């Protein structure tokens, strides 16, 4: 406590009591802005997909554009078959449910290693990280937003969308609807401000992913997959 008071008194260099700390945009203003973003997005969806694809591929990401649900599943199936993958972990987000990925995995004889979260948090943790889930060869996630100007994937965290899926396995497959692609981080920030207005908080963790895990720490040689995935695949499902 002592340190706190000391530091605060030392850094009080301006007396600005009762003036706002910063300008805040009103909810109404944000909503109008978001509507505008959605309109622009709808008009430019083709360009957004192209730009996202280009940026993501620059970072060694593999991008597949699917016109139908079936096609999206076929892309996923061929990634799994080509690499001979038997064990995966995945999200259980709405899009993945709609695509009936579980059925596809069954038919391919692939096992989902992320078991139902029964038991205490500690037991779940033990199971996930030291147990079978830690041996998964591939992670399948959805995507909450894509950023067209940087090729970034934005992933929220929730009980159905855990962090490990895009992090632990050596291959990450992300499935995204084309309507989720935003122009840039400017649009994302508007959405996050709306989150704040509506939910009072941001998600416990928001992750922006651009490309695979990479290092250049040994003589500037790029090596992929130093800690996270060394391959990133993005399946874009064209929205109707």
């Amino acid at each position, binding site marked *: 406590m002592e340190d706190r008071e000391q530091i605060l008194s030392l850094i009080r260099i301006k007396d600005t009591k009762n003036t706002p700390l910063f300008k805040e945009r009103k909810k109404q203003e944000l909503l109008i802005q978001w509507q505008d973003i959605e309109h622009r997005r709808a008009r430019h969806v083709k360009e957004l997909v192209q730009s996202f694809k280009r940026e993501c591929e620059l970072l060694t990401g593999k991008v597949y554009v699917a016109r139908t649900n079936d096609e999206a599943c076929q892309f996923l199936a061929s990634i799994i078959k080509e690499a001979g993958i038997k064990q995966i972990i995945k999200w259980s987000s709405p899009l993945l449910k709609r695509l009936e990925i579980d059925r596809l995995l069954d038919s391919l004889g692939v096992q989902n290693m992320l078991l139902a979260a029964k038991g205490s948090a500690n037991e779940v943790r033990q199971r996930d990280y030291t147990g079978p889930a830690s041996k998964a060869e591939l992670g399948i996630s959805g995507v909450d937003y894509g950023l067209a100007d940087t090729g970034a994937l934005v992933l929220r965290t929730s009980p159905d969308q855990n962090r490990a899926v895009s992090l632990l396995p050596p291959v990450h497959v992300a499935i995204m609807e084309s309507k989720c692609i935003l122009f840039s981080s400017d649009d994302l920030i508007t959405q996050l401000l709306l989150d704040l207005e509506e939910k009072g908080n941001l998600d416990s*963790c928001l992750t922006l992913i651009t490309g695979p895990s990479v290092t250049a720490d040994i003589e500037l040689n790029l090596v992929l997959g130093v800690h996270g995935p060394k391959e990133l695949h993005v399946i874009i499902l064209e929205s109707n």
Partner: protein
Amino acid sequence: MEIRCNQFQELSKKALKDQNLQQALKNFSTLIQENRNSAFSLLDNPEGLREQAHTIKKETLERLDEHLEHLEKNVIRLGGRVHWARDAKKARELIETIACDKGVKTVVKGKSMVTEEIALNQGLIARGIEVSETDLGEFIIQLAEEPPSHLVGPAIHKTKGQIAELFSEKLGVRLMEDPQEMTMFARNTLRHKFIQADMGITGVNFAVAKTGSIVLLENEGNIRLSTTLPKIHVAIMGIEKVIRNLEDLNIFLKLLARSTTGQKLSSYTSIITGPKRAGERDGAEEFHLIILDNGRSKILADEELRETLYCIRCGACLDFCPVYLKIGGHSYGWVYSGPIGSILTPQLINRKQAFQLPFASSLCGACAEVCPVKINIPKILLALRRRMIEDPQWGKPSSMAEKAIFTLYAYIMRNKWLYERISRIARIAQMPFIKKGILKNLPPPFNRWTHHHEVVPLEKTFRQQWKEVSNKYEEL
């Protein structure tokens, strides 16, 4: 870590003779400068962004107390704990106490300069806790028991041969001198540590007051692992790391990765808001935020030097500094190197120990040109130099003789008649010392110049040259 700033001259002499280091610095700077410049050229209005970032830092620091209280309130509201530390010792004690109270046996760490600054690892290790650096570069230098040599690339001074040697000596594996193979070996070794670890410790790139979030940028994924797998996450930040809101964050996200590596965004940007929520499978259950002063409030109070705190630790000033790119990071004798180290270190540690650092610059201004938050580093270097020669509290005030020489020099420079006479004498007096067009071995005290520099002899006076040129021009 041990402070060796007072050995600046010896350390830099050694660095200049280190062929591996010289080659590494050369390769590094060519690549990084190109990447950074091309990343900035793709921005719509890079100058405008830098201006904005500068203003944000200025305004935030002017009300730093309020923003930190705002941050604290929000972190607590989300279920995190906030601890304040006046100095390095207090910060170490806080983290050691958290670790001991929770029975922590193993810690995984993300790369963080501030943990180097407070010498965190030594304290934890002394309490019997195993600490693993997990950034590949940090992992390498931890094995070598060396400090980082660059803010961003801590092991850029090491060759792959040296690293293979190190792995064999410390880890008992014989690997090919192949970056791919060595990296994969490190991945497997460290993955095991991540799964076992009880606590993850990271720094903070930005702390967003309005949302109570901390933001972490990285390319490897080791920071994500450190914040996702262990039950406890401790994040430590200097007081200057707080920003106001998400709009501010947006500006810095556009600048930081571009300045650091020339990427548009880092591979991973994590915005972490409190501990994991009910029903979530991963993420830390316990989140602690340590807010560290350690000399920063003193810098804040000093208006002339305050800009030092705007730094977002991107490393661009190092990458473009002709001095850093010759002498490397270790010569600066402490955690922070390059131009930012030259202004930050003397203000954070015992000033007299670091008094040589602000003089280790040619004042070329490259650092200020690339700084994403437009810190006027040359101006601060000059301010520090002035204090160091004028104020016994800051450094080594100049001797009477030195003062006398410069007073005389100033007098001569202001007096046309005297200046002309003296320079005429000097032109004649220099003749015996000119060897192959260079002035060599002048008698003391002038040998201080000729010892370190290639000094070009005085030419004809400007007036003479002017007369000759205009005559020639008239003839034409």
